[in-house]
């Protein structure tokens, strides 16, 4: 007797739509049990989460502060994984984007604000894309494993940031201000290099989030409506058919890596322009936006439009987690709740597309398979 997971092609459409919500309800119930068992008031905690992430003063703004970088890195992962190019170097590409954008911002700080902003974005895009091209070129031409290379380059990029701020007298490092003499820090950007947010009452929508949302729509169209997207999907779903059709796989891998790296790099630029206004290696490293972006993209099923929604959701959770954390509410419990939510949503997704079956008999599901059984037998 074995447990078998098989593809289910006859899942009704409404189930696919309702599934994420059912999963969230399940997660709430499971988290509630954990909360009650650990001596907390489950409903009170949920009320607190709702208020901290949405309704309290500055709560919604803070949610978008966390959502913005996740949107960038989520998009970066979504586009690459959709192509089955496993770029998990979003973290390092974001660092490089931050280095590039802050460098440009410091250099051109005296220019007019729109010009500086555009130049910073370009700096982030170019730095992130170039960094991603390293695993991209190695994968396309030398068939190296892009997972390993892009992962290792994350650490290299992190060390590069530390080198610039802590271990050298680089252009990025502040060598003059009194606080910088006590502990090394980056140069603060001039006001012209600060990206203006969009004010809606007390809520501030970061410029980066607006840019990223536009990019999400463009990415969606790129995949769905363009020749490039079509060829990309062919290569992802059937490398053999792509070869048969004469498509240029290497060029497309490079392009996808560049786009992915550019998105993560722009996320780094947004960290500098929208929020930090200074290159802060430790802050960026602790945030781990690149890795969380993988989770965001997976929850969104690599659909760029869904990444927008999921990034806000994860942003809200992160924000609420910081608000909840305190002497009576350990950060481990916050992590547990986040884990339960991810587990439920991803598990629900798998059960929606597959179903469990007990027994030892191999089954064929599609007519094609059934016909294949006849031919293969």
């Amino acid at each position, binding site marked *: 007797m074995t447990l078998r997971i098989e593809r289910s092609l006859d899942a009704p459409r409404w189930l696919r739509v309702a599934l994420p919500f059912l999963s969230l309800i399940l997660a709430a119930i499971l988290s509630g049990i954990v909360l009650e068992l650990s001596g907390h008031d489950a409903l009170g905690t949920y009320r607190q989460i709702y208020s901290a992430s949405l309704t309290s003063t500055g709560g919604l703004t803070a949610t978008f502060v966390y959502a913005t970088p996740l949107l960038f890195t989520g998009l970066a992962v979504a586009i690459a994984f959709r192509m089955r190019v496993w770029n998990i170097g979003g973290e390092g590409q974001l660092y490089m984007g931050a280095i590039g954008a802050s460098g440009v911002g410091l250099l051109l700080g005296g220019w007019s604000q729109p010009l500086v902003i555009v130049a910073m974005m370009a700096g982030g895009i170019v730095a992130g894309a170039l960094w991603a091209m390293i695993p991209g070129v190695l994968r396309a031409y030398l068939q190296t494993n892009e997972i390993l290379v892009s992962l290792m380059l994350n650490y290299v990029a992190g060390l590069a940031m530390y080198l610039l701020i802590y271990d050298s007298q680089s252009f990025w490092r502040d060598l003059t201000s009194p606080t910088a003499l006590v502990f090394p820090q980056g140069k603060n950007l001039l006001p012209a290099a600060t990206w203006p947010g969009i004010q809606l009452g007390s809520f501030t929508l970061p410029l980066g989030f607006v840019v990223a949302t536009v990019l999400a729509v463009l990415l969606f169209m790129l995949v769905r*409506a363009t020749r490039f997207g079509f060829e990309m999907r062919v290569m992802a779903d*059937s490398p053999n*058919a792509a070869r048969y059709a004469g498509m240029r796989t290497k060029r497309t891998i490079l392009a996808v890596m560049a786009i992915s790296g550019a998105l993560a790099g722009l996320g780094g630029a947004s960290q500098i322009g929208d929020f930090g206004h200074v290159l802060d290696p430790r802050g960026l490293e602790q945030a781990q936006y690149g890795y969380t972006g993988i989770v965001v993209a997976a929850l969104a099923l690599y659909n760029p439009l869904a990444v927008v929604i999921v990034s806000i959701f994860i942003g809200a959770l992160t924000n609420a987690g910081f608000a909840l954390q305190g002497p009576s509410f350990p950060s481990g419990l916050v992590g547990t709740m986040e884990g339960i939510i991810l587990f439920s949503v991803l598990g629900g997704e798998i059960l929606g597309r597959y179903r469990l079956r007990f027994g*030892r008999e191999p089954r064929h599901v599609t007519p094609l398979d059934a016909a294949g059984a006849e*031919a293969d*037998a």
Partner: protein
Amino acid sequence: MNATIPAEPTDRTDAPLLEMRGITKRFAGVVANDGVDFDVQAGEVHSLFGENGAGKSTLMRVLYGFHRPDAGEIRMHGSPVTIGSPADAIRHGIGMIHQHFMLVNTLSVADNVALGLPSSRGPLTDPGRVSERIRELSETYHLRVDPNAVVWQLSVGERQRVEILKALYRNVALLILDEPTAVLTPQEVDDLIAVLRQMAQDGKGLVFISHKVREVLGLSTRITVLRHGHRVGTLPASAATRDILVEMMVGHALAPERAAVATGEALSDAAIVGLTPAAGQAPPAPAVATTPPRLVVRDLTVPGDRGTDAVRGLGLEVRGGEIVGIAGVSGNGQRELAEAISGVRRSTSGSIVLDGTELTGANPARARAVGLGYVPEERTRDGVVADFSVAENLLLVDSTAPAFSRLGFLRGREIRRHCQSLVEAFDIRTPSLDTPTRTLSGGNIQKLIMARELSREPRVLLVAQPTRGIDVAAARYIHERLREQRARGTAVLIVSEDLDEVMSLADRILVMYEGSVIGEARPDASTRAEIGLMMAGIRPDAANAAAAARATT
């Protein structure tokens, strides 16, 4: 059509070796077997005949324990048995020869035969005794195999003999052979049929699965015809004719020449082996000798997947308005040749020229741009993206055409109009343009690929395995389309392992053996036996002389 149902057994000793009653097997909405009755007496060859997808293999996979039936009963010697796995089947004395052999390539024949059986020496193997027994069995059944040979050195026919030896060694009472002749040369088929006849004489029951009417008629005691998972009927071979069987298989009467196409038979239906087809039945060859060749391949060498050269110094020419067929036993470089011409695989030397344009080393997109149409052998793997919609697959090789994309954006409306017209023109049976291609039948997928390639109006059309594994109606349709291309002046090159298909379609036949063309034949001047000899690697000097003599008279 009257089905002859054997009387219910009353006496246990009279019970048939095998009875299957009301076997029903469904796969997610598709009924592969619907209440099928089937029985085998000791000492008979009972053939299962029907199109691909009719449910023949499914029924036997139920019997061999790969599938559990949703309904129905299996009895051996009159008593009900439950067969939940191949191990159960083997315990009940059932053996099965699969299309893909279950042999360990690095072990010797004797080791393969003894594999999984207890040894007479406990934990130690006893190769001497095993070899001895294999020699005895080889002797009895004229199965020429050296017990000490290592399997990877053996030809396909020899490997099949090892599989049969395995079954004999285990003393099976019932042996299932699933399309055993598909991979054999005509001579090997004759050898196999002789062995099977003798096994039946020795009292074993044999189930012979085939969709080749000639073999079924030549070998069987009784024949059961399946269609769409139903049993159409069972009749003694003495009462069966080609026309009756084909009619049962496809469900309606066919004109004689259609029947020939449907069963994959060349028009030499009467021939069990080696009869010359009647004059005038071969397709009329247009006068093409005067037109310059459109596809010229010279001295082509192409590496195979294992590093050795699969195609060795091959040359061929195809003129406009003719169909040239490449025949041969699978694995003699046909696949690599097709891939090299289409640009999917790189050649290491030689040249490929299409209408005067050098194609050597070109990629598939360039080959298409120059005028090559290519239908690949592995259609669901290479020819389409299985998860894509019908429309997307119709677009697969045309996404860069200006008619379908502007400034990098796909032109949805034009694409849909184009696809809709192709679906109608090529009779692709699909619920909609957005249907996932994987849900289509093999025949409809092949029509889809043909539609896509022919819509580009190729000057040279290369089709690998045009109708392998697809249903009769679609196969007939594809053959008609290929003949239509010939009439239009396209140079058509087909590669097929089905000799009957090649003989019924081609104006000239090139036989490939070990990477080069061993000989050329004309379907109206050569016999199956002559071509079969070439497929087996025997130089055609003698055969050619005979053919030439016949041609001049």
